[in-house]
């Protein structure tokens, strides 16, 4: 377990462009998010108030020393969390899919809502793959999608984290979304 100050230091280094710091921090945030998510689920399963932003915020408060950091640095943390979230959700979708396959897949009775969730798990896995393809063509477009979609970050937070203008975020978001739509639904 890293201490709050260590994590905070890593975050600041990432902001300065350190690749190494990113490699160190990522798995750490990933584990923490996952742990909090699952423990949350067990406690709050009756009312599903759990949202990603809430989750990320909770982890942020827990991991980062607020006194050492400026408001806009928070967005860099959020960006990392968004990438972690992508990983967590896609893993979960894959696991779900595998579970269903594990039994006699043709022989499981679904109610509509489960079917819907299956659809979405499938679509999420598709989306993940297509995002990788998009990144090959244009990394920044893919980044915008990860932050906006998986991190549910606002336009201005995304602009902050990626250090580009809000106008560019908006345009990239439109293009990336169009491209993904074309690939997935077209």
């Amino acid at each position, binding site marked *: 377990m890293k201490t709050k100050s260590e994590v905070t230091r890593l975050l600041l280094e990432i902001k300065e462009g350190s690749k190494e710091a990113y490699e160190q921090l990522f798995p750490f945030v990933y584990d923490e998010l996952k742990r909090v998510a699952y423990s949350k689920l067990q406690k709050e399963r009756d009312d599903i108030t759990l949202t990603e932003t809430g989750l990320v915020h909770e982890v942020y408060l827990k991991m980062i020393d607020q006194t050492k950091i400026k408001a806009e640095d928070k967005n860099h943390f959020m960006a990392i969390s968004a990438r972690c979230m992508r990983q967590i959700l896609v893993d979960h979708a894959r696991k779900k899919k595998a579970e269903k396959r594990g039994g006699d897949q043709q022989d499981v009775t679904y109610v509509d809502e489960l079917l819907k969730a299956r659809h979405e798990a499938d679509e999420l896995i598709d989306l993940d793959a297509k995002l990788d393809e998009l990144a090959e063509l244009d990394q920044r477009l893919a980044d915008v999608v990860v932050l906006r979609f998986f991190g549910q970050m606002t336009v201005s937070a995304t602009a902050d984290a990626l250090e580009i203008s809000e106008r560019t975020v908006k345009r990239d978001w439109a293009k990336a979304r169009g491209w993904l*739509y*074309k690939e997935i639904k077209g």
Partner: protein
Amino acid sequence: MGQQHWEKINNIVDTALELEKEERKRYINKECKDDPELKSEVTRLLESIQESEAEEFLEGKESYPQNLVSELSKTFEKSETSSSLVGQNIDNFKILEVVGHGGMGSVFLAERADKAYDQTVAIKVLRRGMDTPSNILRFKRERNILAKLEHPNISRLLDGGMTNEGLPYLVMEYVKGTPLITYCDTNNLTIEQRLDLFKLVCQAVQHAHNNAVIHRDLKPSNILVTEDGKVKILDFGIAKLLEPEEVSENLFQTRTGARMLTMGYAAPEQVEGEAVTTATDTYALGILLYKLLTGVHPFDLEKKNVTEIERLIRKKTPTKPSTKLGELPKSKQQQIAEQHNSTPSVLQNALKGDLDAIVMKALRKERKKRYNSTDQLLEDLRRRKQNLPIIAREDTIRYKTSKFIRRHKAGLSAAAGFALLIISFFAFYTWQITDERNQARRAAQKAEAVTSYLTDLLSRSNPYLEEKNVGLDVTLGSVLQYGHKTIDQEFENQPVVKAKVKTVIGQVYSQLGEFGKAESLLTEAYQIHKGLKSKAMIDQANTTKTLAFMYQDKGNYDRAETLLQETIQTLQTTKKGLITEEAASSIARLGNLSWFNKGQFKTADSLLTKALEIEQQIHSGNHLHIATRYNDLATMNHAQGKLSIADSYYRKAIANYRRLSGEHANLAIILSNFAILLKDRGDYKEAEQKQIEALKMHKEHSGENSIDIALGTGKLGQIYVEMGKYERADSLLHLSLEKLHKIYGESHPYIARNNLILGKLVRLKKNYQEAEEILSNAHAQFSKVYPENHPRISDPLLELGLLYLENDRLQQAGSYLEKTLDIRTSSYPNESWQMAEIQAAYGKYLVRSEEYKKAEKVLLNSYDSLVKFRGEQDPLTLKIQRNIASLYKEWNKPELAEKYR
């Protein structure tokens, strides 16, 4: 796509996004000049950007991350509830252990808590709560239906209720066993042994269908074989318990909502969210049979996502079982063959032919094309075993014919092949029912089918046509014409075949409404037979009958009658005499013609009864033909006003149909006729209900624009007229007329009948001028269609009489009502509602004309028979009662008037 290429696109799109529509177009054209590929990619991306924005793709509250997170918690919830119930009591049962979880809930093993007797049961606790009182009520109702389902091969539903948490649960007979397919494979059962078990499953399913229960979720894990070798089907009808209540009354709305389905066994209609019928179970049985026979599923579902699987189910025609087996890797084939106690080649040969055809028929995408009932499927399995032709032979005919042609390719001229094909094709349809409308519909289907069969055949193997350069788009017309022209030379020395082909082509022409060509061909065939002098009596009878049908359709009833009588005489000279389906159908046709077209009810009655007796003699017990004959008799008695006799025939016909084929277009027609009977008897509520049921069935079987829907809609309107629901009646009648005009053009008996009802409605709404116009028009149409004193002519006459009476045009009223009375007196028994109806009207007229004595006689007569028929509280009876009261008042006999008040 390379990165460089992407950058090019990206740059153009960036700029384009900033531009207005027209400017954007110009800009793209300029940038992508000489590079159509680039242009199309740019345009596609721009379109996708717009679409994704409109759809809020990856946005909005319900994005996947949110859903996945919430779904995670549900998975958790499920296992929580399940384990917590172990050790607890539900009702009188103690939960012992968890048996399994399914999509709809968890299953537990339980025993009687009070140990009153030794009984282990399975308790299914459903996941979903029943949210509304009406849903709970429905749950109970369904449960009661299921509890009555008793069959040795169906696991029984013992009890059910709500847990303390409000979750519905079901207590069921606990079955310990092995899934059917596993059982067959581990015991190396042969094809025949497997089929024997499969037949047991079918019989159980048919039993449930007879009790109006559809399984909806048949699959191997729901079909177990117990240790002592008994087959048990689990979860019968359970899936329906979970469906939300259907929105009532709204006929034309598609049902949505939760649906239970198992992807591997779901029928196309289930995937599409359409109504589930007995045919849905047939489909699942088809998949099961496929797996039992081949060891594999018809579709390759491995590694496919839901969308892909749904597409396969909806669109892909499965590979024939025998072919599928041959396509498997050799080692897999060997393994499957061993499980069948056989070898790959023997197994494959056993599947070829009948079994292939049977499985494929059960798996048809369109419900209508599958087996009508599980009984039919069983029947085919039985026939296969006895080497009799099977019902699924629509496919096999093609197979046989093409095989025949392949064998005799050298010696067989194209036209002979064509004749053979067309004849065998029609043989398939000889079981057809004698309902007029059905024939019209079948004619269309036949025409279509004949065209495709022939096109297929001719384009493949007909040197004749290739020479003449007839392409693939050969139409039925050109095929017929070709056949028509070549018959004489092709069959110069084979008069019987020549007559046969001429008959077949003539029949097709007649069904297409081309009576001129039909008449000349059929007459030629008829003459050939006459010249042969009793060489091919059955063929001769068939030709004569076809000619008769043609004249009937054309409206030449006398000629039709003579020819039908001749047909029957000819058949009588054959070996089997009149005890054949052919004879029965000819006699029935003559019977229908007698009353429908000529108004001779007595003759009709004896003919139709005779036809029924013949069918009963041929088919002991239930058969669709018998149901059809019941319907003939019902319709005739109905038209004659003998309501209680008609009632009993209708009920027999309906019961027969329900038992034999479940929902069916013919059943819908009978239900619809029956609804009109109920209306005539004054049971409006039930009439409405039956008519709606019929409409639903029609909608499912024939589609929105069929004749049946048009007529059914009109009949429902007619019922609403009687119920006084004028607004509804008005819109339905107009809808019906609109549809009928689309089908028949300007005039047709059905249109005339609808106009009559519409005229009545307008009269009741007191728009007399309009009513007179519509009714006079209807009267003219009726006169064109029916002979002079046909009972139906009296219907528009009566309406016109009533109209004039209400308008105080007494003289006209008198002449129309008297004419009506004349016709009805000679057509209907005195104690019929038709007589009561006209007597009521005529009595009213007499009162107005101050002929009190005469009026009294007529009205009292009418009153007495109505009391007998409909009881004292019937609206029509009450109406006459009021008429009598006002008669006595006018007549100045107040003490008598009081009696009828």
